C-alpha cells in the first residue's frame, strides 16, 4: 500500500505548480488552466483522506461527496470564466488579465 503522505506530497507539488502558473502566466486562459490544476490537487487530498480514514466504510462519504461537489464547481468556474474571457476579448481584443480592468470594483 502506498502511504498517505505520498499522495499528499504529489498533491502539494501539483498545487504549487498551479499557484506558479496562476501567478506568472500572462494569458487568461492559461491562468484558468492553472486554477484547474489547483482544484485537482485539492481533490486528490480529499479522496486520499477519505480513503485512509476509518470512516470510509460507513455512509460518511464526506471526502467522496466533496470531490463530486468540487468537480461541479470546477466545471461551473470554467464555463463562466471562459465566457468572460471570450467577451472581454471580443470587446478589447485582449486576453491579458492586467489589461482588463473593467471588472474591478
Amino acid at each position, binding site marked *: 500500500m502506498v502511504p498517505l503522505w505520498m499522495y499528499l506530497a504529489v498533491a502539494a507539488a501539483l498545487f504549487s505548480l498551479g499557484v506558479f502558473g496562476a501567478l*506568472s502566466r500572462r494569458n487568461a486562459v492559461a491562468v484558468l488552466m492553472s486554477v484547474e490544476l489547483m482544484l485537482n490537487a485539492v481533490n486528490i487530498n480529499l479522496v486520499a483522506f477519505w480513503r485512509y480514514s476509518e470512516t*470510509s466504510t460507513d455512509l460518511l462519504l464526506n471526502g467522496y461527496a466533496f470531490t463530486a461537489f468540487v468537480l461541479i464547481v470546477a466545471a461551473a468556474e470554467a464555463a463562466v470564466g471562459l465566457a468572460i474571457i471570450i467577451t472581454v476579448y471580443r470587446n478589447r481584443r485582449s486576453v491579458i488579465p492586467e489589461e482588463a480592468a473593467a471588472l474591478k470594483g
Partner: protein
Amino acid sequence: MELNAISIGFVVFTIFTLGGGIGVVTTRNLFQGTIWLMVSLFGVAGYFVLLSAPFLAAVQILVYIGAIAILITFAVMLTRSVTRIKTRYIRLVPSLLASLALFLILLLGVTMPIFGGVSPEHAPATVASTRDLGAALVDENGYVVPFLLASVLLTGAMIGAIFIARDDTA
C-alpha cells in the same frame, strides 16, 4: 514501498500528473497546454482508481477530457491573439520563489504525523460503493442540500455564461 500493481500505478500516474502540470505552466502554445492539462488530469483520475473511487475517476475523465478540454479548446480558438503576447510570463522570479516556498511548507506539513484518527500507512479494506454515494446524496441526513444547491449553481452558471457569451450583434 514494495513492487506491486499499486506502486507501479502510483509511479506512472505521478509522472502523468506532475509531467502534465509542468507542461501546462511552461508551454507557449495554448492548445498544447490544454493537452498537457488533460494528461495531468488523467493522472489524477488514475489516483482516484488507486484510492478505490472508480466512479470519481470515470466522472473526472467524462467531465474534464470529455467536456472541459473541448470548451477550453473552443475558447482558445475564439480568443486567438497569442501572437500579440510577447512574453510568456510576468513576475517570473517572485512567483517561482513563492510557489517553491509554498511547496516546501506543504511538504513539511504532509510528512509530519499529525493526523489524529487517520491511519496513514494502511487504508481500510472495504469502501463504500457508488450506490451508497447515490443514496447519501439524496438522504435527508446526507447531502441533499448541497445536492440541490449544486443544481442551482449549474443552472446559474449556464444562464450567466450564455448571457455573457451570446453575441447580440450577429
